[in-house]
C-alpha cells in the first residue's frame, strides 16, 4: 500500500471519529425540557384554546411569514417528524386529509431566505390562545404558540432527504437554529 493511500485511509478514519463526536441535536437539552411528548396536534387544532401554556415541539412547512412587532409570525402546515430517510418534517408519507395550519410568533430576527415558503421547520414553543391571522389575504383563526426556538431547513418546498443531491449536482442543505434572546 502506497503512502498516499495510507494517508487517505487515516483521513477517512479521522473523519469517522469526528463525525461520531460531532453528531448534533437541533436544540439544547434545556430547550426541550418540559416538552409535552404526548401532545396531540389534531386535538389542539380542533380546540385551539383548550390547552394554553403547554410546551410543545412541532414540525412543519412554512406557508407564509410576516414581520410582526418584535419578531416574525409564521403560518405553517404541520408535518410529521420522521427519522428516515432523513430526520425532520416530511410530507412524503400517505396522503392526509383535513387542515393542519397553525401559526407561531418567533420573537426575534430571522433572515429572509430562511422564511421562504416551503422551507421545513421544527419549532419548540408554548401554546397560546388562538389568533386571527391573514393567510394569503384571508383572515383565519389559527392555533397559536410563541416560539422559544425554531430550526429551519432551507428546502424551498423539497424534502430534506432530497439534499444534497438535488438539481443535477451537489448542493448542501443550509439549516439554522434560532432561539429567542434569553430563552
Amino acid at each position: 500500500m502506497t503512502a498516499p493511500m495510507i494517508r487517505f485511509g487515516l483521513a477517512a478514519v479521522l473523519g469517522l471519529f469526528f463525525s461520531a463526536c460531532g453528531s448534533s441535536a437541533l436544540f439544547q437539552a434545556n430547550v426541550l425540557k418540559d416538552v409535552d411528548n404526548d401532545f396531540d396536534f389534531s386535538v389542539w387544532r380542533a380546540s385551539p384554546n383548550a390547552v394554553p401554556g403547554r410546551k410543545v415541539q412541532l414540525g412543519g412547512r412554512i406557508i407564509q411569514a410576516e414581520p410582526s412587532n418584535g419578531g416574525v409570525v409564521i403560518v405553517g402546515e404541520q408535518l410529521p417528524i420522521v427519522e428516515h430517510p432523513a430526520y425532520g418534517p416530511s410530507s412524503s408519507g400517505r396522503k392526509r386529509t383535513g387542515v393542519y395550519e397553525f401559526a407561531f410568533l418567533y420573537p426575534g430576527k430571522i433572515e429572509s431566505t430562511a422564511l421562504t415558503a416551503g422551507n421545513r421547520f421544527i419549532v419548540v414553543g408554548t401554546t397560546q390562545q388562538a389568533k386571527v391571522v391573514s393567510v394569503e389575504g384571508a383572515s383565519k383563526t389559527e392555533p397559536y404558540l410563541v416560539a422559544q426556538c425554531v430550526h429551519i431547513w432551507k428546502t424551498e418546498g423539497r424534502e430534506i432527504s432530497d439534499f444534497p443531491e438535488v438539481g443535477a449536482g451537489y448542493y448542501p442543505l443550509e439549516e439554522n437554529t434560532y432561539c429567542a434572546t434569553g430563552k
Partner: protein
Amino acid sequence: MMRLRITTGYAGAVTAVIVSLFTNFSLAGELSKDPGRPLPSTVVVQAVGPPAPVRVAQAAGAPSSRALPPSAGSSDAAQGGIAVEDLLLQKGTITMDDWIRIKGEEEYKQADREKRSDLLEEWKSKVEKLPILTDKVNFGLNALQYLYTHQNAHVAEGKSQDNISIRRSEFLFWGKISENLPRWHALYEFQSINLSNSTPTGNSSTAAGTATAATFFRETYIDYRPVLAWAPNLNYIRMGIFRMPFGIFTETSGGLRDIISSPYLTSVGSGGARDTWNGVAPKNGTNGAIDFIHERDFFIDARGRIGNRLEYAVGLMNNNNYQANATGANAPKSFYSRTRFLATDVSWVSFTVIAGETNNANSNINGRGKGNFDRYGIDFRYTSKLLPGLMLQGEYWQGHDGANQTTVGTPANGACATQSVCGGDGAPGVQRRTWYVYGKYLFTDGLLENFEPILMYEQFDPNTTVGNDLYQRTIVGLTYYFENMPPKIQSKVQINYEFRHHSGNGPGFVPDPTKGVGDPFAQNMLLVQWQIRYM
C-alpha cells in the same frame, strides 16, 4: 313562453321585495333613532296571526316558516333566515303556484350545482394523481447559458476571435417513485457546440459505420434505497451516468457554478492534435489536451451520511467518460471513494481516492495512458455564517497516468501509432498535480445588492518531474443575480477576465508569447455569460 312567464314572475317578485324592504328599512331607520320605542306590529306585513317575524301568519296551505326548507338554495335574498319567495308568499305577493315554480327552479339549480361540484371533485381527484403533481415526474431548466468570449489567440482563417455560443442548454427530468426508488434522473444537453452532422450508423457492436455520440445525452441514473430504516447511513445505491463525486467542482451543476470556465483540473491544453514544435512532439506527457478529472461516467456506488457529520460515496466506474457507449463501455474499471467531513451544514473538508487501470485504446478522455491510474484529492469549502455572503473554496489533486497518453480519437492500443500525435511511443507515465482556490462575496443589501465579485487562482502541472510546463490562471469576475434562490432558481449575468500563463511543454518547448499567435492557454480571455435556471 314559459321562460317569459318565469321572468315576469321574478320581476314582479323582486319589485315587491324592493318596495317592502324599502318600507321596512325606512321604518327601521326611523325607529333606530329611538331604541326604546316599541316596534309596531305593522312592521311585519301579515294577513292573519301574531306579529312575530319568525312566526308570521300565512295564507292557508302555505308552508310555515319552520316548515320551509333551508334557505341555502334560495340565494336570491335570504333575509333573517327566510327565503325571499317564502316572504313573498307570506305577504301574498305571489301565489302558491308561483312559489312552487320558483322552488322547482331552485331545486333544479341546486341539483345542477351539486352535479358540477361532483364533477369538479372527480376531476380534482384525477388531476391530483397526475405524475407531474405527485413528484413522480418533474421537469426543469437546469441551465440555459448564452456565452460571448474574446481571446487574442490564433484562430483559423475565416474565423473570428469574438465567439458567440450557447454554452449550455440543459433540460432536466427527475422524479421519485417511492421511498425505495427515491429518484430517477435524466439530463439532456442541447447546446450549439460539438454538434455532429453525421448520422450514427455504428457502435461498439457494429464492425463498420460511423460511431457517433450525440451530445444531448449527458446524465441518467436510478437511485435505489434498499432499506428505509438504514437511511441516511446507507441512503441509496446509485447506478447510471452522472457527475462523479470527485471533489467539489466536478459535482457542481453547470447552472450553479461561480465562474464561467471549468477549472484546469477538468480539462486543460489544446484539444485535437497534440502540440508539436517544428514537427517534434515532446515525449514527456505534458502536451495536448488533458482531462485530469473527468466529470461524468458510468458507475455504481453507495452513498450515505453518518452521524450527520460525515458523508461518503464509494463505488466502481467504467472510467471512459459518458460517451463510452460510442466506443465500448467495457473499459478497465476503477474504484473511487470520497469521505466528506462536515464542519457545519455548509462547510467541509473532504478526501477523494480514485484508483484502477486505464487503457488508451478507444479512450474518450484526453491524456489517459495505458497502465496504472490513480487520483488523490482534498477539497474544502468555507461558507461563512459570521459574514453571510462570503464563501471560500479550494481543491488540491495529484495523480498518475500510464504510458503513452493519448487524445480522444487517436488510434492507440498501448503503443503510440502516430508519434507526432500521441506524444511519442514510449512516453513515460506521468505524475500530474493541480490546485485552485477562490473566494467570493455576495452583497445582500445596499447599492451593490445582488452583485458578487469573485477571485480565483489555479495551477496545473502536467508532469511534476519536468520544469517549464506549468499552466497558471487568475480569474477576476463579477456576477449580478437577477434571481438567486439556489438550487432551484438562478438567473444571472457573469463577466470573467482570465489572466492566463503557460510556461510551455518542458525545456525547449516554449509557446510563442506573441499576441494572436500560438497557445490559447498563454493568452488572456474575456468571457460574458447570461444564464437562466429554473426548476
